[in-house]
């Protein structure tokens, strides 16, 4: 390649990357640096005049508090459970839908509804449906002779219910991406495997699924990032309760920052959340080898 082509190439790459880079630097780097500075300070909106940098005191206090470790545990359990349910359901339904011939447009539209409805309205509707005495879920249970449940009242049940509601809202997201991957899939390897006498299960698990991995990896990474910082569902349905049984890191940060107005401490929690997410995604993406360009020009 001669040098003028090399220069053109570099200029093209630069030109394509610059606009997005400028926007993201402007909009995300500044807020990040500000909250990093906050996390090393004792900034509290109750006593804003006492501002001082206390360096790692916030982090020390956090790591010593059992509340923090409880929140870490709940956040991790919630994230893993929700993403696992959504992944299995989303991929399974996408595979079945790929094969279906009847009423596919209708089904696809219905599947998108939980993603399309305004979450504020949906989550409050869930709150009334889950109400132990007024709710329709317990009413239906009674009709078929089962005992009513205290959906949000006991620690284990509350977390399970939250996972179910999150799965209701977000399974369509995985479903949409998996369906896109299936539609774009190259079908020849499947044909070849079938010629070799592979059964449908084998074809699905050994050929179809691996070809979907790149798409699913992206879906899982994004869903995990978002599930890790879920706020609205938990805030509206349990507010972190009963007790602190569903108080995730994000709710803890919200409580410290916007209720107790301890911005420094809240920022420290947020920074720890960010570091945890970065480590998780680095490990995950390296493990599945997402970083290499597959067919570079």
């Amino acid at each position, binding site marked *: 390649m001669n040098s003028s082509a090399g220069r053109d*190439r*570099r200029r*093209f*790459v630069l030109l*394509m990357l610059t606009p*997005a*880079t400028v*926007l*993201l630097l402007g*909009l*995300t780097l*500044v*807020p*990040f640096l500000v*909250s990093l500075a906050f996390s090393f300070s004792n900034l509290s909106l109750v006593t804003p005049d006492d501002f001082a940098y206390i360096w790692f005191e916030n982090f020390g206090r956090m790591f010593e508090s059992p509340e923090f470790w409880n929140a870490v545990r709940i956040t991790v359990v919630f994230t893993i459970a929700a993403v696992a349910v959504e992944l299995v359901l989303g991929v399974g*339904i996408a595979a079945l*839908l*790929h*094969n*279906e011939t*009847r009423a*596919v447009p209708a*089904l696809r539209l219905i*599947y998108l509804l*939980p*993603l399309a*409805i305004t*979450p*504020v309205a949906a989550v409050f*509707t869930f709150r*009334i*449906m889950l109400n132990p*005495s*007024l709710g*329709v879920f317990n009413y239906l249970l009674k009709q078929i002779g089962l005992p009513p449940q205290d959906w949000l009242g006991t620690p284990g049940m509350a977390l399970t219910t939250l996972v179910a509601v999150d799965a209701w809202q977000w399974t369509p997201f995985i479903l*949409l991406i998996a369906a*896109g991957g*299936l*539609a*774009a899939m190259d*079908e020849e390897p*499947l*044909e070849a495997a*079938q010629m070799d006498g592979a059964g449908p*299960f084998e*074809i699905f698990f050994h050929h179809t699924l691996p070809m979907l991995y*790149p*798409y699913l990896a992206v879906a899982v*990474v994004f869903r995990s990032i*978002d599930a890790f*910082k879920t*706020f609205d569902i938990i805030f509206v349905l349990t507010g972190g309760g009963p007790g602190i049984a569903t108080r995730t890191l994000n709710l803890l*940060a919200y409580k410290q920052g916007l209720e107790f107005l301890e911005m420094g401490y809240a*920022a420290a929690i947020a920074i720890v959340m960010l570091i945890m997410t*970065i480590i998780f*995604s680095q490990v995950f*993406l390296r493990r599945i080898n997402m970083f290499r*360009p597959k*067919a570079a*020009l």
Partner: protein
Amino acid sequence: MGEAARQPLKPLSPAVRVGRFLQPWIRRLVLWLFALWCLFPIYWLFTMSLKRQVDAISRKPKFIFEPIWDNYVKVLGSGEVWLYFQNSLIVALGTTALSLLLGVPTAYVLARYRFTGNADFGFWILTTRMTPPVAMLIPFFVVYIRSGLFDTHLGLILAHTAITISIVVWLMKGFFEDLPKELEEAAFMDGATGYQAFRQICLPVTLPGIAAVAILTFLFSWNEFLFSLVLADRVQTVPVGLYNFVGYQQIRWGELTASAVIMLTPVLLFVFVFQRQLVRGLTLGAIK
């Protein structure tokens, strides 16, 4: 996708084997059970929009009741819902356009060109989605007030784009990686520049992918709550506007749910339009 659109794929039947290990009627049953699970809460929300406040939260949930349209009349009559709708439409369409405009080229270069720091750049884009909103909101707020972006459509579009661009880049990167590179190599032989190869060869082929990503971006922006609440005051989007019906004392169930139902229509319309785009792109792919 209609019957006709699927037909050309039929003769290739092995692909159809993806889920063939179930009897058709079991498959259909599972699909419709999942549909029921998706639909039931929405159905319940819809019935609440046709009930009086007392019936919406009555001790015995009512399946059979006399529907009233008062909630819809009240919501549509007040005119506020149109403002929310307008704001959300401007913000969501603006966000979708800007995210695709900035994100798709980035994704293409990341997928196709080797350069120093390619992987790190991709990961950095991903980290922009990771920061918890609690940490972002106050700095955002301060910057917005100072720069005059507070309470403007442009301000919300920029904030939403910052949230959605990472997903556009990472999803589109996957679609571009799946293209055989012979596509562009042939174009280069014919003397095309890098930009022409991207614009005229790769972009049209990835149209179904772009349609899917556009739907997701639109939905993320249309439903975004926290940033829209904090970064604007009079420019209220649909989720923020609907939140007005949730008072400290009581929730105005009828108006809340009726507005939610009304606001679902434009979204479904948008999805429908892009779904057609999706089908068109797919059939193009099948011919290729």
